[in-house]
C-alpha cells in the first residue's frame, strides 16, 4: 500500500513537471532544459513572499504563483523570443544557459542550504493514515490533487479554449497559423507562462512538503523521460509516462538498489528511444521535424 502511494505521489510530481516540457515542446518545438531551475525559482519565490506577506500564508502562496507565471512570460519576451526560428541546438542551449543563470542567482540570493518554506509560512504538514496502513503527507495529497486538476484544466483549455486552439494550431504549423492571423509570439509567451506555472506549482508543493535545496532541478531532469516516454507532443502521454517512470523507479529502488534512483528514468528513456523513439502517444513524424 505504501509502495502504491509512493508511486502515485512520485508519478504526480513527474507528471506535473513533465506537462511543462510537453506544453513548450508541442507549441514551439523547443526543449526547455531550464524547466527545473524555473521550478526551483517558484519554490524560492514562496520563501520571498512568505517574508513579504508575513501572517498571510494563502496570500503569499498566491503571490508566488502569480509571480512565477509572470517569470515565464518574461523569459519568453526577453530571451526565447530572440531564439524563435533559430537552430534547435541554439534554442536548447539558450535554455541551458538560462538554467545556469537562474541557479547562480538563486544561490546568490537564498544560499544553497536546505530551507523550509512551510515553516516560514507557519503552516504544518500533517500526515494522514489511509486504509491499508499507508501514509501520505498533506502536501503530497494536495500535489496529487493539483496534478489532476492541472491536467483536467489543460485538457479543457487546449480542446475548447480559444487560445488553446491557437496553441494547437501554432504547434501543428507555425507558418500557416501565423498566416491565419494567430499571434505567434503571444501563443509562445502563453505556453511559456503556463509551463512555468505548472512547474512552479510542482516546485512549491514539493518545497512545502520536504523543503527546498539547490539540487531540486535534478528532479525536473528526471521528469523529462516521463514526457518523452509518453511522447513529447502528447499531454495524455506525459501522464502515463510519469506513471511508468515513477513505478519503475519506486519498485527498483525497493527491490533492487537504492542507488539506482537517479538512473532509472534514464534507463527507461534509453529503452524507449531504442524501441519507439517518438513515445507511446507521440506522432511519428515528430522525429523528422527537429
Amino acid at each position, binding site marked *: 500500500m505504501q509502495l502504491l502511494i509512493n508511486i502515485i505521489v512520485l508519478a504526480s510530481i513527474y507528471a506535473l513537471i513533465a506537462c511543462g516540457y510537453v506544453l513548450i515542446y508541442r507549441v514551439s518545438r523547443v526543449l526547455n532544459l531550464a524547466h527545473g531551475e524555473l521550478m526551483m525559482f517558484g519554490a524560492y519565490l514562496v520563501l520571498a513572499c512568505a517574508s513579504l506577506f508575513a501572517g498571510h500564508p494563502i496570500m503569499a502562496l498566491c503571490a508566488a504563483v502569480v509571480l512565477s507565471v509572470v517569470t515565464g512570460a518574461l523569459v519568453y519576451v526577453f530571451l526565447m523570443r530572440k531564439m524563435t526560428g533559430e537552430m534547435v541546438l541554439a534554442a536548447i542551449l539558450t535554455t541551458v544557459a538560462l538554467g*545556469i543563470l537562474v541557479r547562480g542567482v538563486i544561490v546568490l540570493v537564498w544560499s544553497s542550504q536546505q530551507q523550509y518554506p512551510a515553516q516560514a509560512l507557519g503552516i504544518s504538514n500533517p500526515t494522514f493514515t489511509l486504509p491499508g496502513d499507508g501514509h501520505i503527507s498533506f502536501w503530497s495529497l494536495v500535489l496529487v490533487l493539483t496534478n489532476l486538476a492541472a491536467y483536467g484544466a489543460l485538457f479543457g483549455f487546449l480542446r475548447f479554449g480559444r487560445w488553446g486552439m491557437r496553441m494547437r494550431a501554432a504547434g501543428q504549423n507555425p507558418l500557416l497559423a501565423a498566416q491565419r492571423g494567430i499571434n505567434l509570439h503571444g501563443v509562445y509567451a502563453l505556453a511559456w507562462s503556463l509551463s512555468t506555472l505548472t512547474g512552479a506549482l510542482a516546485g512549491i508543493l514539493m518545497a512545502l512538503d520536504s523543503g527546498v535545496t539547490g539540487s531540486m532541478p535534478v528532479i525536473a531532469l528526471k521528469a523529462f523521460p516521463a514526457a518523452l516516454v509518453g511522447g513529447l507532443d502528447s499531454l495524455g502521454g506525459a501522464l502515463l509516462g510519469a506513471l511508468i517512470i515513477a513505478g519503475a523507479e519506486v519498485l527498483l529502488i525497493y527491490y533492487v538498489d537504492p542507488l539506482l534512483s537517479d538512473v532509472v528514468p534514464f534507463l527507461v528513456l534509453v529503452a524507449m528511444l531504442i524501441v519507439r523513439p517518438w513515445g507511446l502517444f507521440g506522432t511519428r513524424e515528430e522525429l523528422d521535424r527537429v
Partner: protein
Amino acid sequence: MFRPVPRASGYFRTDYAQDMALLQTRAERIGLAALVGVLVTLPFIATPFLLDLACQVFLASIGALSLMLLTGYAGQISLGHAGLIAAGAFTTGILTREINAPFWLTLPASALTGIVLGLVFGLPSLRLRGLYLAVSTLALHFIVIYLGGEYETKRGFSTGILIEKPSLGGFKLTDGRAWYFVLLIFAAATLLICINLLRSRSGRAWRAIHTRETVAEALGISISGYKLLAFVISSSMTSVAGCLFAYYRGFVSIEAFDLFLSIQYVAMIIIGGMGSLLGALLGATFVTIFPYAIEALLKLLPNVQKLAGDIFAVNYASFGVVMILFLVLEPLGLVGIWRRIQNYFLLWPFKYKPLASMRK
C-alpha cells in the same frame, strides 16, 4: 579550416603537393614558429598557477576539439561529453587501482573504452536526429556516471580514487613543467589528427552528412558508417583526455563529471564558434580561464570578505549570462569576431567584399 593568417592577395597553388601542405605560405611558417617558441618558453617563465592554468587549457582543448569534430562538423549533437571523459578517467582509475597498470597500458585502455562507448553513444544516432539524439546522449551520460558511482561505493572508494603520478621510461611525471609538455604534445597531436581527418574523405563525408543527409546518401556516403565513425573517433579522443585528466589531478571522483561539465564543453564550442577547430581552441581557453577571471575581478571590488562565499554562485550566474550573450548576439562565436577583425583589415578601406569575387 584552420588558417591562422589571412591572405590579402590571391595565393594560387600550382600543384597537388602545395595543395596538401599544412603550411603553405612563409607567413604561416613564421607564425607557427613564433607560436611554438612562445609555447616552449612559457613554462620557464610562468608561475605555477599559470602553468596549471595552461595545463587545464590543453586538457580542455582535447575535449573541445573532439566535440567539435562530432557536433561542429558531423552535426551530431552530444550532451554526454562529460560521461565520456568520466569513462576515460575511471578506466584509468580502476586499472591503476585493481591491477596497478602503468601509463602505457591505461592510455590505450581508455581509448578502447572510448571506442566502445562511442559505438554505444553513436547507435541512437542511426535512428534519431537533433533533439532526440541530444536527449539520448544525455541519458547515456547519466548511465555512465551511475556505473562509475556504483564502482566507487561497492569498492569502498566513496570519496574518490587516488591515482599515483605515472612514470614514463623511469621518469616520474610529478613536475608541473613536465606535465605542461606532455599535455601540450597530446593537444597538438589531437589538433593534427583533427586537421587531417577533416581534409580527408571522412571529414568531407561528415560535412556532407551535416549539411543534408539525403543528398549525402545519394552521393554514396555510408551515413550510418560515418556517423558511427564520428562518434567513435570523438569519444576515443575524449576518453584519452579523461585518462590524462585522471593522472594530472591524481584523483578521480564522480562529482567532477556532472552535467555541468558537459554543458561547459558544449559552451566551449558555441563560444568558440561552430564548425571551426580554431574556435574549439579559443572556446576551451575562454571557458577554462573564465572562472579565474571572474574571481580576479571580484577581488578588485570592495567588501571582498563578504563576497568570498558567493564566488561560486557569481561564477555560475555570469557563465550563464556569457553563454546567453554569445548565443543571442554572436552565434558565430569568438571565431566570428576574429574573422570580422581580419576582414576589416583585409578589406580596408572598404567595408564589404566585392560581389563578383565572393569566396569563402
